[in-house]
């Protein structure tokens, strides 16, 4: 099946400096993709390149199998049928909600019907004739969404769509947006720096960092099988615990010997780093390793403890909130990892270095 959106070896730069290199990904029709990365990682630039506001320095962009961007040629933004929802919504202040939604529609007959349909879909029928500045941020967001999907775009691009919404409404709005996109069967790709938004909405998530697409994968795999240290650091919480390979399938760490799969090419005695998630550390009544409680945060059902090992290394630990330890109390913990995420020591951040057997397979770009 032809992917709805495909990026091939894309590189983007300003003047003589490349800010993104070797980006490759594919999105099938109806899928929702997400570009996730820290600020200034080039996610918005990538989105704008897909929209056609920016030409790539290398590589190609294909929409439904047709090349729309090459370094020497770009289809004009207005001719590639790409809808875009902007970070600040960019509603036209001189037009009503209706007028904004109808802006991209051509022809008289279909327009009124489609506008009405969308007003119902996004639940804004009662403010149809009102101007954008008179409605709330969440409503403006939905107008921007309706305006972008009104002309049935091939791809919908959303640039940090929830960043200007109050945090308490974000999750609800994200769910609404997701259900609207699913109902309309829209292929969409959005940009965010908030991983929980990405987890909530996206089928496929790409982590951008160090000028590259570091992993294009499902949320589950990003968390449980990060391809490199950057992704491991960026997704979820955790600390790297130094260790040493002992007998081909065990690692000796300050928390004792743990068994699991070891990266290829790691021989006995090879120094490695083990990614320890807060939920991998459990308290033990006997045995285990002695640690000191340094900090605690009450989170309702759980406490998040920061623990210090003998050698000063810190660990995070999530414990049920009935286990209420005092600061400086000494407790015992052990590792309870279902699988190991191990990186050879001294590998650069972005190098693919984790061989993970726990992944749910999806096609990685070459």
């Amino acid at each position, binding site marked *: 099946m032809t992917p709805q959106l495909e990026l091939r070896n894309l590189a983007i*730069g*300003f*003047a003589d400096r490349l800010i993104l290199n070797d980006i490759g990904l594919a999105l099938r029709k109806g899928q929702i993709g997400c570009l996730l990365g820290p600020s200034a990682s080039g996610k918005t*630039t990538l989105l*704008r390149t897909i*929209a*056609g*506001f*920016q*030409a790539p*320095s290398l590589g190609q962009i294909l929409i439904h199998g047709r090349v729309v961007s090459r370094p020497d040629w*770009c289809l*004009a*933004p*207005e*001719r590639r*049928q*790409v*809808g*875009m929802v*902007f*970070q*600040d919504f*960019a*509603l*036209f*202040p*001189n037009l009503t909600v209706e007028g904004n939604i109808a*802006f*991209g529609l*051509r022809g008289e007959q279909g327009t009124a019907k489609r506008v009405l349909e969308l007003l119902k879909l996004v639940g804004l029928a009662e403010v149809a004739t009102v101007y954008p500045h008179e409605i709330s941020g969440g409503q403006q967001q939905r107008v*921007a969404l309706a*305006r*972008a999907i009104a*002309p049935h775009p091939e791809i919908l*691009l959303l640039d940090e769509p929830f960043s200007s919404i109050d945090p308490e409404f974000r999750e609800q709005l994200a769910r609404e947006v997701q259900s609207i996109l699913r109902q309309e069967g829209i292929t969409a790709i959005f940009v965010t720096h908030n991983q929980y938004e990405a987890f909530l909405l996206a089928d496929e998530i790409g982590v951008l960092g160090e000028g590259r697409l570091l992993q294009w994968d499902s949320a589950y795999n990003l968390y449980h099988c990060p391809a490199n240290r950057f992704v491991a650091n960026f997704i979820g919480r955790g600390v790297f615990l130094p260790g040493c390979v002992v007998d081909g399938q065990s690692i000796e760490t300050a928390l004792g010997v743990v068994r699991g799969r070891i990266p290829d090419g790691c021989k006995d005695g090879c120094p490695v780093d083990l990614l320890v998630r807060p939920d991998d550390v459990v308290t033990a009544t006997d045995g285990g390793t002695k640690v000191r409680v340094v900090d605690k945060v009450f989170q309702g059902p759980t406490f998040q403890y920061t623990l210090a090992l003998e050698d000063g290394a810190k660990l995070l630990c999530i414990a049920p909130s009935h286990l209420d330890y005092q600061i400086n109390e000494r407790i015992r913990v052990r590792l309870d990892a279902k699988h190991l995420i191990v990186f050879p020591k001294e590998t650069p951040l972005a190098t693919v270095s984790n061989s993970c057997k726990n992944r749910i397979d999806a096609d990685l770009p070459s």
Partner: protein
Amino acid sequence: MVKKSIAIQPYPWWSRLPYWRGGMALLAAFLALPLLTVLGFSLQPAGDVWRHLQQTVLAEYVCNSLLLALGVGAGTLVIGVCTAWLTSLCEFPGRRFMQWALLLPLAMPAYIIAYTYSGMLDFSGPVQSALREAFSWSSGEYWFPELRSLGGAITMLSLVLYPYVYMLARAAFLEQSVCALEVSRTLGRGPWRSFFSVALPLARPAIVVGASLVLMETLADYGTVKYFGLSTFTTGIFRTWFGHGDAAAAAQLSAVMMVFVFVLIVLERYSRRQAAYHHTSSRYKALPLHRLTGLRAALALAACLLPVALGFLIPAGQLLAWAAGTAAMLDAAFLELVSNSLMLAGIASSLTLIIAVFLAYGRRANGSRLLNGALHVASLGYAIPGTVIAVGVMIPFAWLDNTLDAWLRENFGISSGLLLSGTLVSLLFAYVVRFVAIALHSVEAGLGKIRPAMDEAARSLGKRPWEVLYRVHVPVIWGTLLSAALLVFVDVLKELPATLVLRPFNFNTLAVRAFELASDERLMDSASAAIAIVAVGILPVILLSRSISRARPGHDTPT
């Protein structure tokens, strides 16, 4: 984000062409020509006339101009800050009316109020006549303040210029986050001490901006000081030029004057930047108004009414009375004055607007540091006195005319006469230089409402660049363009010194005619021209009063 060559900008292709940049640079240089001419002359060795000036009258010019500026500065600060404070922080009957009525004196050019009061207060005027009759005094038996003095000029200018301070101070008070005031209250300061220790210091940058605008206008004033017979820079430049016939010395005098203007420009720019960063909290809530009752309310109302009455109602009433008495003046000659003025203002404002739109779009599409700098210099015109601009336009244009004429005579035996100087071209050019900053400011404010993402949104919704321009830009900035044109139109109509110098022979406008008649002591005859100027001048006041009340979301609007 840096946008360099590979970025496909959402702006139409024609705005990115190299000639647009070149055109902008050329235009900026052209607009800076008068200023550069004047400054260039300051580098030339001083001539005889200049040495003569230096030995005799220069000290007087500097002294008078400074005293005038100090006096007007103090006067406008007192009136402007007090009225702004009363109307934005206290509630009293008539406050809503006063908050825009206080802007009315803006419609009254200083030279018009000066001669109106002269007519009312001089020996044969209605006031002194009435006093003599009432107390049966005879001439010489009583003392009456002499209006034609430095003090008189300070009073006249203060009465019409205080709205600048009022406007900016009021906007600053309204825009202040109420949080800052509330923090002060929770830290144990009462409402009045909070005002003095928090609100006033927070508004200070805005007040300084207002005061520097006032001082620029004061320095630039020609009509009032000329009419009152005071020797200041502006009258000195006129005298040097026309009396001594020495353009170079006039330019050098202008250059000295520009030193003072530059101090004001620096002060203004610095304070604007301060004002921009002064707000640390963005939570706005209407300031709680202090309710005044009884005597206090009456006093507050009187304090606001007084400047409006003195600065607008009384002189406007007197002018109307005079104009009614001289209705016979409304003849064909008067109609010609009106049509001249309207034509000139119409052409000048359209020209200025076109240039401002060109520059604003150019800057938006391909702004660079160099261009920004050039535009800053080009838009300094608002601060340069009309007299100085006139000198700076006249010298290069006359040189061009003479050179061209001499060349044509020598090679072809024909004379081109005066193509630029002494024609409407030089006058229109001076207007553009003086007022392009006003138009540019409005147009850029309007364009600022169109965020780049809006262009991109329209493009991604299938609109071609020209459709974006027509369907998004035009509807959004239309109102701004109109009000920019109106502001320039009215300013051109009121402009006096540059028009006096640069107008073609026998070409009169309302402002010039009103001033000439008044200078010939035909005050009543000049009233119809004056009242026409004042009536048109009310238009921008209405615009301003609407924008000032919209300055802050959620604040009450005048009805």
